[in-house]
């Protein structure tokens, strides 16, 4: 297997995906969930399919900028999303208006979620902080158990995975929210986990290193762990895809980034992490021999 030698192509593939995501982000902007911006989300069973334009007539009294989505197998349920955080009173009035207009038999929305703007800011900051702290924690652990070069390489793979997942979100134009951050953190763990299994093998093979041929060492280690990498991502994907297909809306928001992350995590542990590690080691070796030549 000549994975390390062909790293250029793998890097280009990843760069293209991330670039596409970047372009989409520039064109469309990043859509943030109401848990980051503040706002209200109300899910109502309308008992029949009702055009969004009709519902909008009622909604205009509350927030003309509200979005309306139909969900559920028969599209009878609607999800109303406003960037205003509606008060308890406004929410009740809104529901009562719809109930009167369409003779709803239920007297409650199925689900209500409201976030004040201040708490949204806070959730956003905490989310970023937790990503940063776990990344640092992992770097320290890996440096302690392996050495810094492995830590840098696995964090590169990690950054790659997060960018890929963000790109998928940008292309599909899905809002980034709190569950997304949880998923990203799980991907963080999963991606590092994957890289570690390969690196563990590299570490084991180091005593057999011939003439500083790090590329060969990397290729051998990848080949030795390849079957495991593939089987594990298949087993994890089996459960998470089942969850995505059968789960409800709130579960889907977790499952989708996880699916993208698991695929990307497996890819990066093979095609990104090890080649990057080899690059670091080769540079270190070149430096050493240069210094050695100078001193002699």
């Amino acid at each position, binding site marked *: 297997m000549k994975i390390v030698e062909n790293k250029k192509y793998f890097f280009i593939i990843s760069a293209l995906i991330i670039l596409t995501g970047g372009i989409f982000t520039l064109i469309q902007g990043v859509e943030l969930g109401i848990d980051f911006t503040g706002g209200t989300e109300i899910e109502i069973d309308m008992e029949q399919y009702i055009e969004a334009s009709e519902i909008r007539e009622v909604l205009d009294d509350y927030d003309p900028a509200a979005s309306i989505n139909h969900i559920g197998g028969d599209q009878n349920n609607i999800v109303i999303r406003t960037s205003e955080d509606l008060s308890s009173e406004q929410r009740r009035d809104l529901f009562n208006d719809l109930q009167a207009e369409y003779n709803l038999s239920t007297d409650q929305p199925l689900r*209500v979620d409201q976030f004040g703007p201040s708490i949204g800011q806070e959730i956003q900051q905490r989310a970023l902080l937790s990503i940063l702290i776990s990344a640092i924690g992992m770097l320290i652990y890996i440096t302690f158990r392996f050495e810094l070069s492995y830590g840098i390489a696995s964090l590169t793979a990690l950054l790659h995975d997060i960018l890929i997942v963000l790109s998928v979100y940008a292309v599909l134009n899905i809002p980034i929210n709190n569950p997304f*951050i949880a998923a990203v953190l*799980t991907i963080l*763990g999963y991606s590092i986990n994957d890289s570690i*299994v390969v690196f563990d093998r590299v570490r084991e093979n180091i005593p057999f290193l011939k003439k500083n041929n790090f590329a060969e060492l990397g290729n051998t280690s990848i080949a030795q762990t390849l079957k495991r990498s593939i089987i594990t991502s298949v*087993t994890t994907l089996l459960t998470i895809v089942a969850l995505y297909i059968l789960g409800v809306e709130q*579960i889907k928001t977790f499952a989708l980034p996880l699916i993208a992350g698991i695929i990307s995590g497996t890819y990066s542990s093979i095609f990104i992490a090890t080649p990057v590690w080899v690059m670091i080691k080769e540079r270190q070796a070149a430096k050493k021999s240069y210094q050695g030549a100078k001193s002699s």
Partner: protein
Amino acid sequence: MNTKSLVAFIFIALLVIAGAYTAFLGLNVGGLSIPPLTESVSQGLDLQGGVYLVYEADTDSTGAELDREMEQVIEIFRLRVDSMGLTEPVIVREGDDRVRVELPGVEAAEEAIAMIGTTARLEFLDPDGNLVISGNDIDDARVMMDANNRPYVALELDAGAREAFAEATGRLAQLPSDPVDDRVIEIILDGEVISAPEVSERIDTGRPTITSQTFTIETASELAALIRAGALPVELEEIRTSTITATLGEYALDRSIQAAIIGISLLMLFMIVIYKIPGLVADIALTVYILLVFGVIVLLNATVTLPGIAALILSIGMAVDANVIIFERIKEDIGTGKTVRVAIESGFKRAFRTILDANVTTLIAGVVLYQFGTGPIRGFAILLIIGILCSMFTAIIITRLLLRLVVKINTRKSKTLFGLK
């Protein structure tokens, strides 16, 4: 052929299946009846339906003053929630100036929210139902200790209300001591009598006190906090609401269980197809893992939320990973000429280090998530942590135990178990 090991293996397998059956479907044999373990799992609001609220107090107070204000907010919430007759309401202070309210099983969600969030109305009424003073007339209410170290509640009235209070107490104090009910001033908060002290004398100082033989520090503080709540209401802002009907929660749970059953079945089938007998061993270990996770959840009384279920299902997929690493190692070691029995031991030893390093990193993510996450994120993190710990345990203990047994069953043919000649 070693019959003893075969019997032991089959026995363990049957035991695990019986355990799984009992845990998920319950047992009903003769007089013995065990309810499913899954019934003892406490479900989050998003699964059983209910209301989740966070209020932020709009106040500039700090330190002890803020503590007092938050205490009165919590007391008044408790009074209102208690009147709804719910089973397990949660009302706790969160951070400095926030209060979290969880009301499982509430059906009329918005009505409940409206009731909790309204401004308090406090009234002091005489036995004829006439208003003596109202919340606005009270400057403060606090708990004090008398000479005998018994708690009482001391009120401070606004200067403008002194006269009215002196007049009413003077009138009531003159009445005959029997019946007592005629000499009582009822303190009513939001229509509910929170105290009904008997007037013993005319009070014109504007500093009445409420004493009771039955006061403890807690009950006296509660009363003082409630009076303050009606007198000096703290403005509250609803910063987070989440309500879900029981029907939608139940539906979400059903769908997740369905997904879990299908996902796990496919996963188990996949392992048998890839690894044959060791695959079966992994499947048994996986069943033990699932039982273990549920056991820990029940033991820790951890709440299972919808994101938590996602974490569980994810961790099941990841739990298999440890087995895969072990099997691949053993295969490799057999390939280098070791006997199967030696290969199992050496394979486990080498795989252990990999599994440990790989899982600790995921664990770091889980712990950070728990520490810094809010609400649903924490539910996700706690189950991720439980899942990782249990999966390491089952892979290392259960899988090894079963593999040793399997090898003993037929030592000569054991290599074929791993698909090697």
